[in-house]
């Protein structure tokens, strides 16, 4: 009997995301990913001064604020063919790293770990055994018996008081939950510790950005931070040293807790290295510009086809023609007028709502393609491109995770395991470790550059008459983000944001090929259609910025069961 399961997650701003799957014999046989709301937020900046766009675009989404600000100023700079002072590039690099680390840590521990970790089971753990296990694979200082016992007592007091709070909606006791109680306890402890650590990452964004959640130091042409190592009121050595101390704490957690936890979870759920690959054409963009013009980067990006790293083709500058020409968006299955796949500079958004048609139009999200094909974006794409380009830090951390998984699981696990649901989590942890290491380099580069006497942070933009086109891209926590701008006589004429969730959550394209979410869900097991935990695991592994409300429709009985999911 085929059952249709509708997962209807809610995103804060970009619109509701709804996932429909058909389940037959305990497996997903068909999947649809549908954006349920049209906002047309890009229209807000049309007609405005391009220098103001970033302040609006950073409010598009509640989770990814800084990234839209950065992509926006880069788009204008690109249109004006501007260079940006080195200090500004480095300050941006530090800020985007801290933002991404915050985002990745919160995603793994607070938004998706509970798909894999059974908090209630942690109550059955022996804290001594748990501590021995944790200390056998990690030198993290908070894995002691005392610490773990306290965490267990805390959880017990929540259960006893009947107030599980944010833990109340988990699929506790679900047959797909497989971690031993001791591992669940370690994970619960790190869940709580990660709450502290994410604040450190956020503090760095605040110090550099002037404020969070919406930074105010970005500007077209650079940043507004004033640099004077001896002044009390601006960017000085004291602040830079404080940032470094926060980085030390983050580094310790990422390398000794996050990377290890991902490996432990992966080793216990190794079958999930066999589900969720989906689209294995991967796209990422280079990040952390190291020169004024944006032609040298600390982190390479590019395009990989069919999961084959030898096909890697790099994207090499902010003006890269291979990237700029490759991106199109199709509206064939989206609720817009369809005039064939269009380049973002020519993008149209004329609504044409039809209702949900399985074979026709079913989403407010357009379907982006790279040279006509869907592409998966995100930390996995990023890490694979880094590995393909021989990036030393990425290879080192990837090998660490795979070796730890292999040793815990007692079987050799190779790079191929990354093309999967669990692999996306592993890649996100690896990317965090890479960002962490690179962030230290950026900090040193900034201090060194200031020491040469260079305190410049801003170049004045000049808007000529006529039309200029530009693109600003950023390898954001969820993957390739690109803002496309057309400026006419100093005002914005067209503006399109092609966001990571569009790449991954897009519907079928002009050739009726499914998007990455849709493809990744095929053949996923579903033990209990009323509690489609497995569907959530795969969707969450992409890190959609959503919380989910699950509606289960049984087409036979036509009844709707509503389940809240985390």
């Amino acid at each position, binding site marked *: 009997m085929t059952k249709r399961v509708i997962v209807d997650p809610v995103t804060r701003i970009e619109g509701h995301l709804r996932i429909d799957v058909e389940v037959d014999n305990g497996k997903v046989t068909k999947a649809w990913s549908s954006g349920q709301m049209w906002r047309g937020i890009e229209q807000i900046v049309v007609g405005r001064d391009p220098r103001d766009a970033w302040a*609006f675009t950073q409010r598009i989404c509640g989770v990814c604020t800084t990234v839209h600000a950065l992509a926006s100023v880069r788009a204008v700079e690109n249109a004006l063919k501007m260079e940006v002072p080195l200090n500004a590039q480095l300050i941006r690099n530090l800020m985007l790293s801290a933002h991404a680390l915050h985002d990745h840590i*919160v995603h793994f521990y607070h938004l998706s770990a509970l798909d894999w970790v059974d908090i209630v089971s942690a109550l059955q753990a022996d804290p001594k055994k748990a501590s021995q296990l944790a200390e056998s694979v990690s030198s993290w200082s908070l894995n002691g018996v005392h610490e773990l016992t306290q965490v267990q007592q805390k959880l017990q007091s929540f259960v006893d008081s009947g107030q599980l709070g944010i833990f109340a909606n988990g699929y506790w006791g679900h047959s797909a939950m497989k971690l031993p109680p001791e591992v669940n306890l370690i994970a619960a402890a790190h869940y709580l510790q990660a709450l502290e650590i994410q*604040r450190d990452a956020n503090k760095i964004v605040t110090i550099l950005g002037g404020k969070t959640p919406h930074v105010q130091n970005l500007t077209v042409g650079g940043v507004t931070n004033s640099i004077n190592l001896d002044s009390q009121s601006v960017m000085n050595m004291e602040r830079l040293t404080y940032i470094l101390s926060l980085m030390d704490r983050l580094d310790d957690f990422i390398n000794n807790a996050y990377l290890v936890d991902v490996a432990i979870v992966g080793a216990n759920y190794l079958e999930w290295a066999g589900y969720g690959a989906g689209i294995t054409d991967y796209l990422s963009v280079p990040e952390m510009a190291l020169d004024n013009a944006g032609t040298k980067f600390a982190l390479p990006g590019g395009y990989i086809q069919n999961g084959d790293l030898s096909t890697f083709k790099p994207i090499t500058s902010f003006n890269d023609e291979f990237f700029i020409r490759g991106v199109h968006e199709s509206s064939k299955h989206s609720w817009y007028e369809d005039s064939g796949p269009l380049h973002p500079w020519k993008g149209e958004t004329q609504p044409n709502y039809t209702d949900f048609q399985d074979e026709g139009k079913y989403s407010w999200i357009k379907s982006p393609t790279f040279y006509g094909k869907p592409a998966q974006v995100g930390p996995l794409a990023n890490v694979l491109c880094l590995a393909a380009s021989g990036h030393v830090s990425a290879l080192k951390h990837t090998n660490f995770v795979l070796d730890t998984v292999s040793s815990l699981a007692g079987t050799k696990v190779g790079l191929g395991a990354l093309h999967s649901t669990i692999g996306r989590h592993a890649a996100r942890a690896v990317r965090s470790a890479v960002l962490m290491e690179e962030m230290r380099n950026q900090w040193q580069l900034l201090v060194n550059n200031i020491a040469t006497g260079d305190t410049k942070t801003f170049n004045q933009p000049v808007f000529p008459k006529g039309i200029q086109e530009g693109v600003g891209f950023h390898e954001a926590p969820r993957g390739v983000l690109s803002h496309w701008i057309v400026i006419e006589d100093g005002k914005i004429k067209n503006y399109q944001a092609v966001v990571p969730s569009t790449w991954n959550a897009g519907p079928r394209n002009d050739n009726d090929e499914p998007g990455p979410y849709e493809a990744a869900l095929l053949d996923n097991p579903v033990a209990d259609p009323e509690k489609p935990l497995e569907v959530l695991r795969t969707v969450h592994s992409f890190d959609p910025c959503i919380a989910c409300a699950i509606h289960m429709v049984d087409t036979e009985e036509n009844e709707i069961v509503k389940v809240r999911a985390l």
Partner: protein
Amino acid sequence: MKILVLGIGNILLTDEGIGVRVVERLRELYMIPDSIDIMDGGTAGMELSGDLANREQVILIDAVKTGAPAGTVVELYDEQVPNLFRTHISPHQLGISDVLGILRITGELPKHFTLFGAVPYSIDTSTELSVEFHPIMDDIVQRVVTRLAQLGVNLTRHLQPITSDNPTRMAS
């Protein structure tokens, strides 16, 4: 810990931005003393956890959906506030409810809350409040000022409002 005045909402969605607009208006009209923190929380969630943790008093301004007609202003106090977000009445349920849930677990939940919520007329795409919502904004600004006075903080007006027509002190 200082009193935190926190406005949340999305200013790209018309009346959804009321919390942020009230905070902006407070800054335009009043000198903000060092004894309080006033913050535009925008659409954020977890980023706010450090700013909320362990506060004695939090005054929250937000758009709410209560079933009451548009333009209705609600006031809630103390434990009613986390409870409101737990039952998901506010359109900001995701961010703030997660943060409050987490602060409960870490034992850092603010001691006292005041919420001023307003039911929106429109949440279409626009950077301006709807015309009907302007008096609601002024009303909430007054309520915040009154509440702060009850808590022992008296705000003093600028001689002239700090607006884009008078940008001398727009910096912060």
